[in-house]
Structure formats: structure tokens, C-alpha cells
């Protein structure tokens, strides 16, 4: 436990000791607002935040890998991994410590969009339960992307390579569920297979929670996805010890 807490604390603080956190927050908050206003946040005249949240997967495909790419690639490049793994810390404690610190950082970023929620509350009477579900969906999706980014960061020593690989992997997970992809796949795949592809994508589960329906299958999708990629990340780092 002490190993986990040490890594978690150090990692979370390190976002704010470098300009990374501030650059990330500014870019994220600007674009999340910009996309919402561009799509007619006010013009829709509806007291909900659907328009704001529906763009999150596209934004996160680029931004979350940018926040995740340094997690392990940097440790390996600078050699500090040798320090980390000669302290009494297990691989899993380190992986979870880093992942949860980065996730908490993303949660901070997501919660800083609160002025949008306040605006909606001020202008109308939104369904607060739905709004909470939308935030939950966004946080879970950020965790999913982060777990993917964490894995690819452990695979390569080079941050750029980690970034590109995780953007590709996250895009596949998002775009597999887009209607255009599904339509294209249905031209040559049987309906069952197309459905399966849809079910494996972020989009389907994200939108399902976004509609305010909290279903076990959607929550468990994200949890299994996160657990799977994190376990794979741990396995890659553990294997690396064998040289």
C-alpha cells in the first residue's frame, strides 16, 4: 500500500510541477467549450449538456494519449524506472499508482468544465441525474483511453511512438461504433458480427450512459476494458525485467 501511495502522490504532483498540466487543461477546456458552442449549445434551447458531451470521445482520442504517453516511456528513457523498481514497490502497485494519478488528473480536468453545467442550471431546469450520468460516462471513457495509453507507454521508450500507437488504438475503439463504420461493415459482414464490433466500441457504451441509462453492461464494459489494459501494461513491464 505504501508503495502505491508513494507513486500515486509523486505522479499526481509531477503533472503540476511541469507545464504539462496547465497546457493540457487550457487546450482541453478551450476545445470542449469551442466544439459545444460550434454545435449550437445555446441555439438548441434545451436545458441539457448532450451537445457538450457528445464531442468528448473525439477530443479524448487525442488528448488522453497525450497525457498518458509520458507515464512509462519517460521513466524508461530517463532510466528512473531503475530507481522505481529497486524500491520496495511491486509492478502492480506502480502501474496502479500511475494510472490512478493520471485518472485523477483527468477527473480534475473534466470537473473544471463545471461552468457549463452551472450555465445550464442557471438558464433552465436540467435533469441533474442525467447530468451526473453524463459526467460519469465521460470519466469512465477517459479511464478507458488512459488505460490504453498506459499500455502503449509501457511498450515503447519513445513518447511519440506511444502517442501515435495509443491514438490509433483509441480511434479504432471509437470509430468501430460510428454509424458510418457499422454501415460499411454490414455490406460484407453478417449482422451478428457487425453487432459484436459495435458492442466492443467505446461509442456504443458511452452513448448508452449518456442517454441516462446506467446499465450493468456499459459500466462493466469500461471496468473490464480498464482492468484488461492495465493488467497487460503490468505484464509488459514485468516481462521487461527478464531482459
Amino acid at each position, binding site marked *: 500500500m*505504501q*508503495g502505491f*501511495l*508513494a*507513486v500515486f*502522490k*509523486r505522479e499526481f*504532483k*509531477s503533472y503540476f*510541477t*511541469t507545464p504539462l498540466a496547465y497546457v493540457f487543461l487550457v487546450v482541453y477546456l478551450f476545445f470542449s467549450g469551442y466544439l459545444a458552442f460550434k454545435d449550437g449549445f445555446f441555439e438548441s434551447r434545451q436545458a441539457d449538456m448532450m451537445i457538450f458531451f457528445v464531442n468528448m470521445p473525439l477530443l479524448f482520442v487525442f488528448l488522453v494519449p497525450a497525457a498518458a504517453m509520458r507515464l512509462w516511456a519517460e521513466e524508461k528513457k*530517463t*532510466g*528512473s*524506472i*531503475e*530507481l522505481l*523498481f*529497486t*524500491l*520496495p*514497490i*511491486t509492478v502492480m502497485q506502480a502501474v496502479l499508482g500511475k494510472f490512478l494519478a493520471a485518472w485523477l488528473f483527468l477527473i480534475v480536468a473534466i470537473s473544471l468544465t463545471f461552468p457549463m453545467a452551472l450555465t445550464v442550471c442557471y438558464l433552465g431546469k436540467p435533469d441533474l441525474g442525467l447530468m451526473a450520468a453524463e459526467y460519469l460516462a465521460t470519466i469512465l471513457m477517459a479511464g478507458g483511453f488512459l488505460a490504453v495509453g498506459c499500455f502503449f507507454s509501457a511498450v515503447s521508450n519513445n513518447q511519440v511512438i506511444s502517442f501515435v500507437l495509443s491514438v490509433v488504438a483509441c480511434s479504432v475503439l471509437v470509430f468501430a461504433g460510428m454509424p458510418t463504420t457499422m454501415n460499411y461493415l454490414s455490406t460484407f459482414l453478417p449482422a451478428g458480427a457487425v453487432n459484436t464490433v459495435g458492442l466492443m466500441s467505446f461509442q456504443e457504451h458511452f452513448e448508452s450512459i449518456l442517454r441516462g441509462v446506467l446499465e450493468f453492461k456499459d459500466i462493466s464494459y469500461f471496468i473490464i476494458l480498464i482492468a484488461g489494459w492495465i493488467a497487460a501494461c503490468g505484464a509488459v513491464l514485468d516481462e521487461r*525485467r*527478464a*531482459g
Partner: protein
Amino acid sequence: MIKIKELRKSFGPIVAVDGVSFEVEKGQVLGFLGPNGAGKSTVMRMLACFLRPDGGTASICGYDIIKNPIQVRQNIGYLAENVPSYSDMTAGAFLNFVCDARGLEGKRRKDALDKTVAMCHIESVYHQTIETLSKGYKRRVGLAQALIHEPPVLILDEPTDGLDPNQKHEVRLLIENMAKEKCIVISTHILEEVEGVCNRAIIISKGKILADSTPEKLKAEYNCTLDEVFRKITAHKVA
């Protein structure tokens, strides 16, 4: 306190460590010598449980490096060759992180920090970020990190590399002062250092131990300086 049995490690086709066995007891300061690429750092990395051996085993303070890596790491202080640290942290924050990871809390942490910071003479750079420190100070912060929990076993990979003569002297004094209480393994290329602080020397080349004796005995046996002994043993046996 350190028992190594037939330790082996290869990286692809390159055999880095080829069946190394030795034991080190409390009170011994072992100088681990060898040309570049001899396998010194690899042995030390395996002892610190950073690399997993391909064959053989080792134990430190009774804990096996493969079965109980966490207990082994609790009992050792390890300074790696390139002195890894988190360069964006201040020296103080970095040492506090190491205390966190090693479970040093409250008064024990304060005492440990006070003692180690004074011992390694890093008071003046305590609030400075590590990336702005000179090579010598970086190494001293690394040394402080290895000593902070007062481990019974110290594994130091080239602890005086890059230090000026005064700093080298200080580190040697530090090692001498700790020698009675601990079991210390040092790798180095500076042979006068071996004569100065070590009471045992192992010469290794191409992953194999070529000599295991005291610096004095080696000099007497070959009837020359330690420098010449080193050259004779490694050049002769390798060729």
C-alpha cells in the same frame, strides 16, 4: 549476508554474466572490478531485483532475489550507475518520495532525513530541482537515497564516478565509516579507491570471475601495483 550462486544472464546472443558465485559477509567492503562490459552492473542489477537472472540464484539477508524481491529491496540501498532520479523534483521532495516508498514516517523520517542530508552534504541544494544540480551533487542525492533507510547491505555502482577529488575523498570516508556495520559492494574503475576502502576485490571479465582475493594479496601475488594486476589478469585471460 549476500550469497550468489551460479548467477547467469544473457541479452540475446550476448552472455553478460556466466555463472558467477560468491559470498559477502558483514564488515566486508567488496570492490567489484572489471573492464567495461564485464558484467559488473548486470550482477548488481540482478542483486537489486531490477533484472531477473536466466539461471542460478542469490539471496540477500536470507531473502531470495527471485522469490522475495520486495524484502530484498527493503534490505538494500542501491545506487545505479547512471544515478536515476526524477529530475523535475527538488532534492528534498525526491528524498521524501523515497521515504514514502520505504514507509519511513513521522519522527523516523525526520531523523533519517536530517542524518542523511548532513552525511551526504546536500543541505545547500535541498530545495533545488535535481535537473539543475551538478553531476557531483546528483550523485550525492543518489547516495542519500540509497542510505536513507540505513540498509544492512549497500550496492553502489561506480559511486565516485564524475566526482571531483574532494568529493571522492568524502565518499570514501563515508564508506569507511559505514564499513563495520554493513556489507558493501562497490564497482569501480579507480583502483586506488579499491586499495583505499575495500578489504576484498573480485575481478570479473566477460561474465566470469577471474580473481577473488584481497587487494594486498593480489599485489603480493603478482608483485606489482593493482593497476598492473588488473591489466595482467583481464588482458591475459580474455586474450
